[in-house]
């Protein structure tokens, strides 16, 4: 890969994070180019989801740096300077608005219709007028095949439909990168492939994506690179081909246990 850092859309630089005594991420480094699809695999508790949540500071890293679109972001929290903390907090939404995220448990807003779920960010973050926002939101929902569900509340939707709403909600904001955090893990088996197809559509459109998943077949199909994580560290990064033929003992053990 090119060593010039400005070629990367996203750089994760020596990111560490612990929850109390538990070191969830230990000095993680990863660079992602524009248009690249990276799948992160590894056993549960290896820090995959936490890494995603560090990228948009929903769970801010303890140390390290995120460079996104040439802008550097670090965690900041002063014990005494409350004003500085406020100023810092005010900046974060700008970063997050450029990074779409879809969660394992959908996290759609149950008190809003499908259309309101998607148009909320357009109105409040992209500052669109209400009518314009609804129009864009409706288009976004149409792309995920939900144009007949605009006025429906989430508790009338299936898991797969809720996840489509969540995908539309993220995509409507026209993000530069999408983060998928085990988005099929909470779905009934028959609904999984539909959501994977949505992600495949984004791959074809050239969206930059980081996908944490347990769907190995899918990961090896769509990824340009695969990242294997274990115990808070990136153990190996490579093309699907390289990872499939890995000789690294932990990666090998994980893959054979899962592919059996």
């Amino acid at each position: 890969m090119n060593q010039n850092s400005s070629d990367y859309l996203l750089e994760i630089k020596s990111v560490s994070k612990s929850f109390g005594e538990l070191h969830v991420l230990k000095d993680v480094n990863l660079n992602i180019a524009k248009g690249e699809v990276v799948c992160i695999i590894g056993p549960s508790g290896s820090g995959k989801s936490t890494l995603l949540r560090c990228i948009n500071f929903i769970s801010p890293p303890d140390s390290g740096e995120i460079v996104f679109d040439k802008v550097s972001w670090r965690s900041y929290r002063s014990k005494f300077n409350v004003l500085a903390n406020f100023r810092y907090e005010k900046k974060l939404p700008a970063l997050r608005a450029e990074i779409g995220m879809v969660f394992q448990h959908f996290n759609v807003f149950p008190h809003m219709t499908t259309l309101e779920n998607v148009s909320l960010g357009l109105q409040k973050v992209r500052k669109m007028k209400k009518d314009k926002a609804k129009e864009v939101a409706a288009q976004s929902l149409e792309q995920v095949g939900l144009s007949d569900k605009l006025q429906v509340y989430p508790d009338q939707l299936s898991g797969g439909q809720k996840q489509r709403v969540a995908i539309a909600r993220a995509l409507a904001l026209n993000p530069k990168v999408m983060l998928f955090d085990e988005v099929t893990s909470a779905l009934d088996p028959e609904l999984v492939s539909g959501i994977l197809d949505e992600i495949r559509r984004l791959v074809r459109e050239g969206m930059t994506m980081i996908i944490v998943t347990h769907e190995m077949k899918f990961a090896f199909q769509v990824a340009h690179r695969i990242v294997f994580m274990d115990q808070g560290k990136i153990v190996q990064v490579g093309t699907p081909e390289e990872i499939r033929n890995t000789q690294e003992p932990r990666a090998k053990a994980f893959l054979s246990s899962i592919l059996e």
Partner: protein
Amino acid sequence: MGKYDFSWRIIEEHLPELMKGLIITLQISVAGMAFALLFGLFFATLRFSQYRVLNVISNSIVQVGRSLPLFVLLFWIYYGLSLKFKINFSDFQAGAIALGITGGAYMAEVFRGGIKAIDQGQSDAAFAIGLNRMQTSRLIVLPQAIRIILPQTVNIYVGLLKGATIVSVIGVSDMIYVAQYVSLETFRPFELYSFAGVVFIALTLSVASFAWLLERQLSGKSRRG
């Protein structure tokens, strides 16, 4: 014991005054509830602050507010503040503030419980689309928490409504105060206080049924398309 002749006519004769008192009771309880909601939300927010100091301060104020009898609080605010700091509130203001503090201490806990009941994933998702903290609370967390806290909030309002009868001790001319002075003239305390009691039952029932309707309205919104 002698035979007691009930004379319910006394109520009819003094109905206009009693109704005036009732209106004062309603006004002071609503004003108190408004304060309680503000205090409650404020202190509940502090409880969720990332600054330990604010958590501790808010927690202490809530604990003290809950432990203090309304009666003592009233005296402190009405007489104490005036004597010691020359801060003079009218009897109505002092009553509303005292009710607000007591109710607010309870509301803080209710708000805290309601907010905690909302899944963390909801604010994660709100942050992820770029909403700030304020927008996340106002647009995502609070609207969902309100459905959870509504029944308890009604209970607290009913408590304040009854608590509002104590404000007569600092001379607020609420319904109990009216009943008291009319009975001094007419020697009919039994009839007058019983009337007040019945009015309170009616009030509580109407508040409860209003809340029930509201609750149905709110939960229906997400169920029906």
